[in-house]
């Protein structure tokens, strides 16, 4: 690993960017968890950087995450949680048996549920930076919805990087029982008071939707301008389970997100709608995985990208259908809208289909705003910049409509804000 000139300021890492000190996170928690953390640490320290030849890392340099994670300071410590639950849910909205808790409390108090799920979908085998989160996660949340229980209002988690310049390793574990229903908004916000400070965020989200459950998960990435963020999401669906995933990526200087759904029971269905909007010199990298392991499973991804200025994006989407997964349908579409010359969008679809009994398609388009669409709006008296705003809002609508209504306006405003001063 390359040596760096700058002396690390971060006491968790040594000069080579390896995790040297786990004492903070090893102070707390049961032995089974500490062992997981040690294994993760060793995996992170001993594994090479991901090869750039893989599609997953073709457009984003992993060394950048090593550099920033070992130089920016951490101030979040275990037990001091920058994440908070922001919800208008009152006690009476939370049905009996539902658990909403910090993950560090949950490993102590709900080991029977947590241990069989935590690290099951995202662990040191997933990748080097997933192992980094596995070793260092420090502000986690845990949600459990028992079988047959429905929470009617969306649950809202807000991860605010309250200390400017501090690294954070959020981790979310969601377990939804048979026939249960849950809607979650997972919002990652930058520090408002010092938006120029660089920091690093490495998050992991594991979601389990058991038989015939219905889960809606929305991820809103609104980090501040100089953040490097790495994020991995994996959801596993049981028989007949249904999952809706909506993702908005607006912030950060370097953002690499990886969303994956594993259809692991017959008849499971996943729909995913993503929007990334890059401006300035942002680099937004997103990978999606549709992994069919059972028969009669359906998955659909509609991923959109808007870019302006010198922003760049990379979308890689993998559809994998296992040999034993019969009669599946999988669709993927990636549309990229470039608002000016100088912005650049890359797209790579990948198919790994191991049986022939499937219906599957993928497609990608990259283009600019159709001048005829713009003229149509202008011919109705709408000024040119407002016409662009309306067309982009229309482009974003296919994702926004899947986000709970109470959050939509804020996101539309955030999109409008990004279009200002064009």
């Amino acid at each position, binding site marked *: 690993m390359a040596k760096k000139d700058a002396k690390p300021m971060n006491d968790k890492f040594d000069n080579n960017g390896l995790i040297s000190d786990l004492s903070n996170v090893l102070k707390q928690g049961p032995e089974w968890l500490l062992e997981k953390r040690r294994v993760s640490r060793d995996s992170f320290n001993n594994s090479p950087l991901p090869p750039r030849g893989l599609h997953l890392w073709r457009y984003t340099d992993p060394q950048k995450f090593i550099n920033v994670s070992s130089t920016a300071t951490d101030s979040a410590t275990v037990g001091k949680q920058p994440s908070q639950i922001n919800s208008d849910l009152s006690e009476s909205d939370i049905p009996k048996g539902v658990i909403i808790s910090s993950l560090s409390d949950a490993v102590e108090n709900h080991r029977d549920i947590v241990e069989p799920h935590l690290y099951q979908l995202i662990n040191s085998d997933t990748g080097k930076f997933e192992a980094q989160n596995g070793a260092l996660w420090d502000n986690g949340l845990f949600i459990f919805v028992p079988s047959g229980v429905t929470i009617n209002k969306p649950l809202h988690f807000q991860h605010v990087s309250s200390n400017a310049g501090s690294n954070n390793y959020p981790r979310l574990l969601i377990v939804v029982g048979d026939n249960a229903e849950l809607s979650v908004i997972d919002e990652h916000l930058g520090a408002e008071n010092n938006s120029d400070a660089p920091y690093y965020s490495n998050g992991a989200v594991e979601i389990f939707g058991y038989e015939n459950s219905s889960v809606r998960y929305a991820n809103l990435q609104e980090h501040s301008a100089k953040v490097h963020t790495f994020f991995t999401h994996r959801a596993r669906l049981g028989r007949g389970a249904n999952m809706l995933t909506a993702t908005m990526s607006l912030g950060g200087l370097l953002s690499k997100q990886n969303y994956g759904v594993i259809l692991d029971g017959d008849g499971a269905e996943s729909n995913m709608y993503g929007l990334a909007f890059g401006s300035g010199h942002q680099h937004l990298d997103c990978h999606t995985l549709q992994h069919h392991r059972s028969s009669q499973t359906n998955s659909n991804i509609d991923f959109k990208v808007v870019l302006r200025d010198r922003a760049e994006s990379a979308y890689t989407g993998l559809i994998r259908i296992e040999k034993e997964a019969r009669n599946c349908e999988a669709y993927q579409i990636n549309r990229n809208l470039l608002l000016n010359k100088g912005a650049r969008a890359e797209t790579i679809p990948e198919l790994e289909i191991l049986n022939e009994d499937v219906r599957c398609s993928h497609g990608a388009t990259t283009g600019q705003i159709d001048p005829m669409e713009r003229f149509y709006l202008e011919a109705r008296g*709408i000024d040119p910049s407002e016409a662009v705003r309306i067309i982009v809002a229309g482009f974003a609508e296919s994702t926004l409509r899947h986000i709970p209504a109470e959050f939509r306006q804020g996101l539309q405003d955030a999109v409008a804000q990004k279009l200002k001063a064009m």
Partner: protein
Amino acid sequence: MNPKPLLDIEDIHVEVEGKEIVRGITLKIFPGETHAIMGRNGSGKSSLSNALMGHPSYQITHGKASLNGQNLLDLSADKRSRAGLFLAFQYPMAIPGVTVANFLRAAIKARRGPEADMSDFRKLFKKEMDALAIDHSFATRYLNDGFSGGEKKRVEILQMAMLQPTMALLDETDSGLDIDALKTVSEGINRFRSDDTGVLMVTHYQRLLNYVKPQHVHVMINGRLVKSGGPELALKLEERGYDWVEEELSRSTGA
């Protein structure tokens, strides 16, 4: 009598991709008047209306055009619209993700200003949809996205009714309409007509003119208005086609 023309165009020439399509048109439309320009496909009728609206593919290379005394050619398309010009498109664009209601709200806001009271919008919108027999579900449908030809034309006229321009250019508004839709759309156009407004219909069929009766009919051939008359001219064109106009034209220029 108001002696000032509403739309005043003088020796307008229009190029598309470097080719001259409209080759010197002069036309005055006074308040309260309805004119029709008839001609075959390719005669330049649509190019004239698109160019007047400010379509980026149509360049006006020569001539003058004003609306209520205001020079249109200095204005961008959005300003021409706000000045009172309206074009009902022959092929309206689909704008995915933008609902008819949100689009119209934005267009009306653009006229009234960002702080304007919009509390009457819903009522007005419903009223005009009802008048054009447009199902209310269209309010939340994406603009022209998956609409049939007839639905698109109705929604064009809906926009005209909502935006209340002073001068409407209607480009082949009758095409793609069945007889019931033609009647509904014509009624919409007739409601728009008043002593203060002007209408220019561009069409190559007479049938719309049975319902929306123009005072003046012009024949366009090869980018020029070659003959003008009253409503009887449209009937004659319907009956005898355009050949006799061409023959007349070649006789007069050949002589």
